[in-house]
């Protein structure tokens, strides 16, 4: 075990633990935000730079500070390391910069975005008091496309965290989903619009931190904050069968994996659980899901006034009809 100090809190963690995971063991405000790191996805992290922290003391052996801010998700803690997260003005400043960068090409159309209410970018921006960027140049735009019968891709909203490509690579066979082009022009694509179809592809929706990959069955049907999330399970041969049902009354609006307190799904679910069982009777409901602090709903950050579209629009829509409302986005 090694000792690390993060924002003046000393903890003991196993050797080889990253600064991020050490902070997560403590929890609360000292946990750096993560827009790309995802524990269960190998090779994730390092890209968004949201989790930058200051290392004021490298280790007990070599107490020199690190010359630059480091990505806490991919830097191992050392014995005697002293880390500053929110206690460092440099870190706070750099993170504001990261939010602003992520918004340079982001539409911020939260009122009409299906992710609103459970969006990591929205939370991240909110936490840093930034609603928009100072860039007033034209943003990159893409038409939304369907990647298969279940998933919609809104490339315009993608922050290129690469998580979905890792799901495609690590959870599914014969990856067809990937990242094309380079730099600011990079885009998520299946190139010739091949359908992404296999048992675990739905998890790409759950790992996507923003509203870039959304559930075609759920789009516009409702707002997450009007729904009651319930833990439920069923016997499933392909996966653990442990899910969250998003209910209004007895009606199942959508099925997702269970996100933990840092917003990560630990047990990925199969597409059958996600899309073939919209009847509550198929499920054994365990009880209401505790909404974690990561959600803007519980933090009361998102008010109904921000919703510009009439409620009827969401409730009136059903699975078959959503296509007609394509124009909205």
């Amino acid at each position, binding site marked *: 075990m090694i000792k690390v100090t993060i924002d003046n809190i000393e903890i003991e963690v196993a050797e080889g633990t990253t600064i991020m995971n050490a902070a997560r063991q403590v929890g609360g405000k000292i946990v750096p935000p993560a827009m790309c790191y995802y524990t269960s996805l190998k090779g994730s992290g390092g*890209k968004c730079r949201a989790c930058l922290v200051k290392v004021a003391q490298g280790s007990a052996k070599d107490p020199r500070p690190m010359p630059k801010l480091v990505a806490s998700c*991919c830097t191992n803690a050392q014995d005697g390391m002293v880390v500053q997260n929110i206690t460092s003005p440099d870190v706070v400043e750099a993170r504001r910069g990261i939010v602003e*960068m992520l918004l340079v090409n982001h539409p911020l159309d939260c009122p009409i975005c299906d992710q609103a209410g459970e969006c990591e970018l929205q939370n991240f921006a909110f936490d840093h008091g930034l609603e928009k960027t100072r860039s007033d140049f034209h943003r990159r735009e893409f038409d939304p496309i369907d990647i298969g019968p279940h998933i919609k891709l809104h490339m315009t909203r993608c922050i290129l965290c690469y998580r979905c490509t890792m799901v495609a690579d690590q959870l599914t066979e014969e990856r067809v989903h990937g990242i094309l082009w380079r730099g600011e022009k*990079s885009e998520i694509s299946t190139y010739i619009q091949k359908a992404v179809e296999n048992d675990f592809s739905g998890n790409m929706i759950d790992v996507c931190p923003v509203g870039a990959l959304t559930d075609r069955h759920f789009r516009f049907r409702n707002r997450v904050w009007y729904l009651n999330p319930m833990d439920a399970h069923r016997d499933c041969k392909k996966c653990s069968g442990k899910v969250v049902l998003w209910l209004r009354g007895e009606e199942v609006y959508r099925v997702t994996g269970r996100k933990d307190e840092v917003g990560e799904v630990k047990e990925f679910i199969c597409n059958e659980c996600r899309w073939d069982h919209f009847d509550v009777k198929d499920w054994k409901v365990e009880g209401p899901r505790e909404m974690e602090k990561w959600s803007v709903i519980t933090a009361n950050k998102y008010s109904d006034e921000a919703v510009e579209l009439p409620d009827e629009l969401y409730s009136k829509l059903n699975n078959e009809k959503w296509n007609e409302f394509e124009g909205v986005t």
Partner: protein
Amino acid sequence: MSKKILLDKINIEGIKSFDVYRANGGYASVEKALKMAPNDVIEEVKKSGLRGRGGAGFPTGMKWSFLDKKSGRPKYLVCNADESEPGTFKDRYLMEFIPHLLIEGMIVSSFALEANLSFIYVRGEFRWIIKILEQAIAEAKRAGFLGKNILGTGYDLELVVQTGAGAYICGEETALLESLEGKRGLPRIKPPFPAVVGLYGMPTVVNNVESIAVVPWIVLNSGEEYAKVGTAKSAGTKLISACGNINKPGVYEIELGLPVEEFIFSEEYCGGIANGKRMKAVVAGGSSVPILPTELILKTAAGENRLMSYESLSDGGFATGTMLGSGGFIVYDEDQCIVRNTWNFARFYHHESCGQCSPCREGTGWMERILHSIENGHGKMSDIDLLWDVQRKIEGNTICPLGDAAAWPVASAIRHFREEFEWHVMEPKECMNRNYGLREKSIMSIA
């Protein structure tokens, strides 16, 4: 004439061919090195004080000694011949006109590092150079300097020329390794460093062409002899590729420590500013390093003569100094527009960003757009401060140094030429008339 180490034989008729090269003492270092212990070759390079010629200037011998030889896994040497830093065209010169020097260096270096398969990663555009190198390799192989059991010593080495395909970022060593593995050139997160986890996950050393090409001389003449050339902190000679508004653009081998003024104005090197103009600014080590105005490139802030060496060029830090970098030396005369040039470089980094991390992917595009609007006469005074702020938010916060490389030219241009930016904002018409600002024809032609 000053000391020549790399280019001393460049004018010999036919030196491109194996036979002429060999007849003039070529490959002698292989004969010598293969009788030594590999680690003794590394020691010699350490003693030479050689610093990497690719840009960062990291001591080569030290890099070699970090290579994980203990684990017994295969080791690789990869030569970085991606040469894409604007202003830099020296490696190309070496490979085109004296290719066997690089091959000889690769053999000796591979032996020192105990590698049995080594790569030369050449930027894809150098198509004729790839042919030249492949031919040189074939010749060396035929003469028994490559392949199995080299010179009967039991040492085996295969040398592969790998082609890039147009991506500046693949000059960054970990992106280069990704590319060599047949992937997108996305820089890896360090640590682990290539010396431990490199090509195919194996211990790997990546070195610039020039760094490797100098190894034969060091082996033949000893590290001590090399260290005697140049200055105490900048041993040896360096290839400088000079371009811009000078009379004699080209590749020159200089002894480190040469006064900058002599390099620019003497007939032996750049031959002064073209068309009788005055000099305005210099980018001394490739587009990534800070631009300096005439007074600061010729003399340090303390009033001493600026020399062509790592320590003298960086004297004063970024406030008043710059870097030797890759040796891409770009000279600007009084007619050149700094804002325009800064925009041009910003466009370059925007185009070349791999897009992996958000500050660089988004920030490079943002900087380009702000600069474009200032250059076009649509800028506001506040844009200059915004630009400063954006570059500051990129620098130091990215995965690889391309982010820094994009930020530094912008920062230094504002630092040293702020009035010119302000002038563009206040007098856009005047700028356009003076050929500053984007000229009509180039606006039309922007694709």
